């Protein structure tokens, strides 16, 4: 997970993550292994109502 974030250019940004609709804490990303067909969410702050 950590590597994916780096490859996608998010390493310098504040992001939060989830895999298959399960939250993955920032400190757990290094140990979170991704497999084929996993659905990954990487989100950043945004305007909201």
């Amino acid at each position, binding site marked *: 997970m950590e590597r994916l974030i780096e490859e996608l250019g998010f390493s310098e940004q504040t992001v939060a993550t989830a895999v298959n609709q399960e939250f993955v804490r920032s400190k757990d990303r290094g140990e979170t292994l991704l497999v084929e067909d996993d659905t990954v969410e990487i*989100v950043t702050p945004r305007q909201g109502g």
Partner: protein
Amino acid sequence: MGKSDDLVVYDARLSSRFLLGTARYPSPAILAEAIRTAGAEIVTVSLRREAGGSRAGESFWRLIRELGVRVLPNTAGCRTAKEAVATAQMARELFGTSWIKLEVIGEEDTLQPDVFGLVEAARILSDDGFCVFPYTTEDLVVAERLLDAGCRVLMPWAAPIGSGRGINNLFGLRALRAHFPDTPLIVDAGLGAPSQAAAVMELGFDAALLNTAVARAGDPVAMARAFSLAIEAGRAAYLSGLMEPRDMAAPSTPVLGRAFGDGFEA
């Protein structure tokens, strides 16, 4: 109004009863000025996917932090309890707050809450230490279930999100206020005009949350002021004790002693 009328919600004591959304403004500068003019102490925020390296989210977050307001992240767009729970957990880490405006949407045309998913998610999140602000309907039974689930505030809609229709169900909102006199009730969604915001405050609701009516106004900053004044006026009117409407006229000027009235007999 002095500090005696502060609104206490979870761990916060608020002097402003105007909560403002941060979406759909013409520019970040206008958003910032609208928040300042509104006097809002709480603003809603969200989280979304973004292309790596875009930094749009980062600059928005910096702007909000510089304003020194408290943020209330939402779970907008979530359609299941599971999505909402994961979104809330991501928001807590991203924004550094356990406050969450919980939205679980059940119907596309009205963006009506899925109240079953809402109660389910509210229970999970409350048990996990979140301070849940549930976006709900005026349904009394659902409100009771949300309080049972751990919510200490309720956010009933006035009308569908972004509709600007004002109070859709006056009886329902009145009943909700009467049924839960000690629970902070923040009307969220559907307010399109300052008069509508004043109306919900006159009913005794504790605060109003809105976004579109300000953000999409011709002059959002001026509209933020208009809503701020209306919310304050509505609150003051509620506290002052509004007169009961009556069917027949009642003269305000004393009748006794009027000229040409029933005079004295010579």
